């Protein structure tokens, strides 16, 4: 760890030319985990890495340098080189570092970094044994538990001096069902900022059975139809639609340079009036939570959309300068090798009032996606696509045969307007989001929702 006086020396070097702002970001990451294939432990790893990132700003110009070498003199030299490379700006004063303020979003009962790996192995083995004896169609199981501690220290030329310790744990389990040449998967991947008690309390057998049922069902399913139709998106990971179709386009990374399809849309209607949505980094124990962001700002519970009206963007320091609006505490990075930028945390569509059953019952014909895979979006055009891992046809208000291979495609602006029903069964689901500042843990979430018309890419002709 760098001392206050060494951090101050680095900041002084960084501010020695024309920077109006400088920041030192120190990070230590410890990670350990195990991986099983078909009940055998095929992987066990332990990593430790640490490094420092130094960021200088002059207006909206940025210089970022980083190194895994934490020698103070090397870092001062790096800061001086960075100061030389920064263009524009005029010298600003450096405030003395405030007293160090420490925080953590965790409340941990059992430290996962001290849990014996053999406990983790036994846990996954239990799921693997259950799956392989559940049905002979289950031909493969893979599982892992990974835990990590991340310590960050953020200090800047405004005197900010903060440290946060973040601990995360994630379980991943997948089964493959085989039917002839057809192989389909069922998977779970919950994550949490709780301790190892999260694993101990997880209903692994029940969830393993669900994975097996999904894989077996999909291995026997026919192809999804193509064409436009009403689509009901199940709760939980169904929220990836909002994450992709709207969330990314609300980040100042694209809004700040006016390349987002939602630029200059604040206080206008961008979604159907039944839609309200939040980005809340302060949910205790949730996978995407943090108390301070990677710029040292306090995280927030931000309403993004209220009754269809856009109420907030996700803004970091650079976005704040570009947009002349305050930062919202959402600046994140994978690790010290990335400059931070505006990112999502726990992002979800809020509960409505309807039961999921009534939404299905009111749908004459359509696709019901109960499990969604990943997706991607072009924030300039709003065009997105994502995959369904489990889906069923709906006819006359009833859930009918399972279908596989459906891709959902559309434009965020249109789909948000086309959400016509919102359920009351909000659930959050852990994921990892990749963007220009690397991969960060996020949750997506939503209650069951219906999109009145959406393009489904499948392999069979649709019904009229």
């Amino acid at each position, binding site marked *: 760890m760098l001392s206050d006086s060494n951090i101050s020396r680095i900041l002084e070097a960084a501010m020695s030319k024309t920077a109006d702002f400088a920041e030192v970001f120190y990070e230590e990451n410890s990670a350990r985990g*195990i991986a099983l294939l*078909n009940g055998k*432990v*095929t*992987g*066990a*790893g332990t*990593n*430790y*890495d640490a*490094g420092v990132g130094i960021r200088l700003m002059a207006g*909206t*110009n*940025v*210089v*970022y*340098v*980083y*190194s*895994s*070498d934490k020698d103070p003199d090397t870092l001062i030299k*790096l800061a001086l080189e*960075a100061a030389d*490379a*920064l*263009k524009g700006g005029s010298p600003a004063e450096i405030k003395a570092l405030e007293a160090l303020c420490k925080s953590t979003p965790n409340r941990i009962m059992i430290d996962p970094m001290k849990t014996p*790996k*053999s406990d983790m192995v036994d846990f996954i083995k239990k799921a693997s044994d259950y799956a392989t004896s559940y049905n002979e169609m289950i031909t*493969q199981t893979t599982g892992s538990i990974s835990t990590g501690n991340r310590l960050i220290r953020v200090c800047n030329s405004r005197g900010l001096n903060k440290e946060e310790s973040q601990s995360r744990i994630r379980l991943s389990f997948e089964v493959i069902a085989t039917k002839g*040449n*057809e*192989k*389909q*998967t069922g998977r779970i991947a919950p994550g949490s900022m709780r301790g190892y008690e999260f694993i101990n309390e997880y209903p692994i057998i029940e969830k393993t059975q669900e994975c097996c049922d999904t894989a077996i069902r999909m291995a026997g399913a026919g192809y*999804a139809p*193509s064409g436009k139709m009403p689509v009901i998106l199940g709760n939980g990971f169904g929220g990836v639609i909002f994450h992709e179709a709207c969330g990314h386009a609300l980040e100042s990374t694209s809004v700040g*340079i*006016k*390349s987002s399809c939602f630029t200059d849309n604040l206080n206008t209607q961008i979604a159907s009036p039944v839609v309200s949505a939040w980005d809340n980094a302060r949910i205790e124990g949730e996978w995407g939570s943090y108390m301070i962001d990677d710029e040292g700002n306090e995280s927030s519970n931000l309403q993004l959309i209220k009754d269809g009206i856009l109420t907030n963007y996700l803004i970091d320091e650079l976005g704040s300068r570009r947009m002349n609006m305050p930062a919202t505490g959402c600046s994140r990075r994978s690790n010290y*090798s990335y*400059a931070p930028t505006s990112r999502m945390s726990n992002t979800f569509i809020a509960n409505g009032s309807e039961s999921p059953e009534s939404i299905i019952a009111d749908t004459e014909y359509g696709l019901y996606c109960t499990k969604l*895979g990943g*997706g*991607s979006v*072009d924030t*300039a*055009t*709003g*065009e997105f*696509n994502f*995959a369904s891992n489990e889906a069923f046809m709906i006819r006359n208000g009833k859930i009918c045969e399972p279908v*596989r*291979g459906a*891709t959902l*495609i559309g434009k965020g602006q249109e789909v948000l307007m086309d959400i016509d029903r919102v359920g009351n069964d909000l659930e959050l689901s852990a994921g990892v989001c990749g963007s220009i500042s690397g991969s960060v843990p996020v949750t997506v979430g939503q209650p069951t929702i219906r999109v009145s018309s959406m*393009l*489904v*890419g499948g392999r069979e*002709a*649709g019904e009229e």
Partner: protein
Amino acid sequence: MDVKLAEQFMLKLIEKSSEYGFEEAEASFMNSSSMSVDILNGEVSSYERSSDQGVSFRGKINGQMGTAATTEFDDDALDFLLSSALENIGVLNDEDEHFIYCDPNNSNLRYEALSPNYVKNTYNRFAEIGLDLEKRILAIDPAVKGVDYLSISCGTGPQIIINSKGLHAYRDDDSVSIYAGAHAEKDGVVKSGGYYWYGTDIDEFNAETFTKELEKRLMGKFGARSMPSGSYDIVLGNEAFISMIMTFFGNFSGYSMMKGISLLAGKEGETIAASCFTLKEDPFYEKAIYKVPFDSEGVTTRAKAFIDKGVFKTAMYNLRSAAMAGKESTGNGFKSGYKANVSASFTNLVVEPGTKNFEQLCETVDDGVYITELNGLHAGVNAISGDFSLFCEGYRIKGGKISNAVEQITISDNFYSVLKKISEVGNDLIAEPHGEGEFFCPSVIIKDISVAGDAEE
């Protein structure tokens, strides 16, 4: 960190490993130095420089391999690596043996390909090229509203492997690359497009041809409409074909086959593709910027066909999967970083080009679709079964000629069926960086692909 100091640390690590009970041991070191300049609105908006390094240890006891990695290089790090790896061995019960290897005839492997041009990669040079390129892109058309992303970057850094069997491998090369993405708006319709360049000499970058290609990729998308659903013959553009093959290439891993995850298991020697299709690997391919003489296990690489005239010749084997299959390693065991485990990857991939140029491919298709981009490849596919349903962009082919742009369409099929439905391979070879080297690939014609759209024509 000085390479000599890193090597001293690695030797000490291997020497000390026997005190912890390791029978065989290996240390891997990687150092990377990089620089990048981003341009936005006529200014250098961001400049990054880095120097990052790390070391990993793997050691073997009773056939099990324990691993650990760190960015630290002091005495505490020695103990951390060795005791962590030992703790990990305590829980492992892998049925398949891991190997630490050294070919006595090739124990000192060295590949130094540092370009003398690397010194040209300076902040000022990148800024000058970037600012000029941004101006050129904005001048393409009044509809171009912004260059959203323009980044020039370069990187270099050695990788070293030393093991207790006598291997000392050293590899060092460098690269420079440019990526630019812009968006344009016409009558309320927004389109975005991007292009890239890479090489080892920044002087070889040609801003004029780059801008022309970007113009085609961005402005060509206007006037796009969907099209009626149906079965069409398609020209799968070279870039789109590369992205499709890469999505499913994990199935060519010997390990995936041995574990029954890949549907290619047991199919070596069988016909899995059309006879016009040959996919080979050549570590020393003459057109390749990067040559890759050995893999991350110290096995020397060699040229071979994965698919020869439709016949599946061999999978990618590393030492472990080769032993499982009772074969020799094919030199395809690579680590993607110092922390990573060895897995299947390749040097330079080449799809053997045919004789027809791109225009002739379109003429052959006559009525169909030219697919330029496949989107959502990490989402809209079943990587095991080969099924895909992908949102894509491209152009309608009518009367053998490129017609209007198409959007909001998906193509659906199965990768293994697509390999068999290749009816022509073009000669419009392009290269993209992939694996440990590059992938050289032309456009192809695929027969009878299901296209989903929502418009009449």
